């Protein structure tokens, strides 16, 4: 639980770690747009997988770490796979593979379900690479810098990002506290493990109330401490870590755009290239 403190950050020295957080955030956004909107054939999923693989190689993170992130959504993926498979609405020329009672399984159904599965897996893996290679502080700094234009419309960018980083900072403290409260209640005979789901939820109430009280007390103390350290919002505030784009950032970003172009080409085939036709 305590490892939450750094998000999932995996400390290492690598080209990916050194990239500017802004570049990495933008790349992740582009990647997500690609994965959701423009990948349709198995080949383009292959291209996405290649991007992730390159990312893993350049970040020197053991691939197991990245795959682990997928574990959290495996239930969702399996569920949606089965759902899509059974409820696939067939078109005219689809090949029927299995017909039993009311269940029809089509070859095209298998294709669609597999693509959905791949899409979900790849959608999780991309952003995971971002959080594995970027500390929460860098992440919020990058976000603050990227959102700066919104200041023109009086959007409280600094406030939003400081709230985010403080929230991240307090996750381990609060989870530690929760554990303590649960243990204290257990010591006094509270039962969290038996009964149905409603009973269990009700048993958590005596945990949540002291947790909230303590969270407010902490907030109060933190506010005093921040005031005491001359905090007055974004006014006149500078940064120790100044974000700086390097040549590598441009290279990485344009490389990603090149992949994006390939994926677009695979989808729309503007130039009518014959061998792409085969993949669509």
């Amino acid at each position: 639980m305590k490892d939450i403190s750094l998000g999932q950050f995996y400390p290492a020295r690598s080209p990916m770690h050194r990239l500017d957080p802004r570049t990495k955030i933008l790349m992740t956004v582009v990647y997500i747009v690609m994965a959701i909107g423009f990948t349709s054939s198995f080949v383009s999923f292959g291209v996405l997988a290649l991007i992730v693989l390159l990312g893993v190689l350049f970040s020197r993170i053991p691939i197991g770490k990245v795959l682990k992130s997928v574990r959290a959504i495996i239930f969702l993926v399996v569920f949606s796979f089965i759902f899509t498979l059974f409820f696939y609405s067939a078109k005219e020329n689809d090949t029927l593979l299995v017909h039993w009672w009311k269940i029809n399984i089509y070859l095209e159904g298998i294709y669609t379900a597999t693509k959905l599965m791949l899409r979900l897996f790849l959608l999780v893996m991309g952003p995971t690479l971002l959080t594995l290679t970027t500390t929460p502080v860098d992440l919020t700094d990058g976000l603050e810098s990227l959102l700066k234009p919104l200041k023109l419309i009086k959007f409280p960018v600094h406030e939003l990002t400081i709230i985010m980083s403080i929230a991240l900072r307090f996750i381990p403290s609060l989870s530690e506290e929760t554990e303590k409260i649960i243990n204290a209640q257990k010591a006094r005979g509270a039962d969290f493990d038996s009964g149905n789901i409603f009973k269990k939820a009700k048993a958590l109430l005596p945990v949540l109330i002291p947790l909230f009280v303590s969270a407010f007390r902490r907030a109060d103390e933190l506010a005093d401490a921040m005031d005491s350290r001359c905090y007055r919002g974004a006014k006149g505030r500078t940064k120790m870590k100044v974000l700086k784009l390097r040549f590598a950032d441009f290279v990485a970003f344009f490389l990603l755009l090149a992949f994006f172009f390939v994926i677009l080409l695979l989808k729309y085939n503007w130039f009518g290239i014959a061998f792409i036709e085969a993949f669509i």
Partner: protein
Amino acid sequence: MAFVEFDKVNFSYREGEKNAVSDLSFSLEKGDFVALVGHNGSGKSTIAKLMNGLLVPTSGKVTVDGMSTENEASLFDIRKHIGVVFQNPDNQMVATIIEDDIAFGPENLGLPSEKIRERVDWALSSVGMLEYKKGTPFRLSGGQKQRIAIAGILAIRPDVLVLDESTAMLDPEGRREVMKVVSELNALGMAVVMITHFMEEAALAKRIIVLNEGRIIFDGGREIFAHAEELNAAGIELPVCTSVAARLKKMGYDISEQIVLPEELAEALCRL
């Protein structure tokens, strides 16, 4: 005018409630080492917050370097002079990486990046924690965390360091670590105000102010330790060595009543 001045300060948290501090007047100069001692509810933590303008007196005046804490516009400058470290280090940290946390203060001052880095390194080495710079505070011991919290204030380079029961949550080892750092800082010329209920810690200060019910009942040097009964009446427990010495004195032995530390008692006993 003194650097920090409390002039007939009264403060109550809610209107009509009993005053947390009453008619408080005292002053501090740069370089002082003062201990504020009192039992719970004696108003000692209120004084810390009054000093840097987190609280404003109900009546009376607190001035720092000639600026009144009533004036909201001067609070930023007042807080540059008066750095307050609170009791719980966990609730004073804003970042998950130590150097980012220390940088928070100088960043608020609007210093350029290189200057901030200099200050972070200086502050961390002053508390002997430079090697943990890139680490996270969560795995540290209580004493180490509190040293980080002190470094966070030091990086602002205040003239007065106020420790509001900053050792109360620490084990004896952590307390010793923090006290050592504080004494070193004072030796370098930083004024220190130690708010505590441990008389052993107060004994390190050149000046001891004892509070009871929001009023100053004693303001002076180590001779306070001779007034055992008055201290007990104010709800302050005497250090073990002091009470041993006091009892020996009562039994007719020729021993000083200003003994606080075990080493001092050992030496005095050998001389008997």
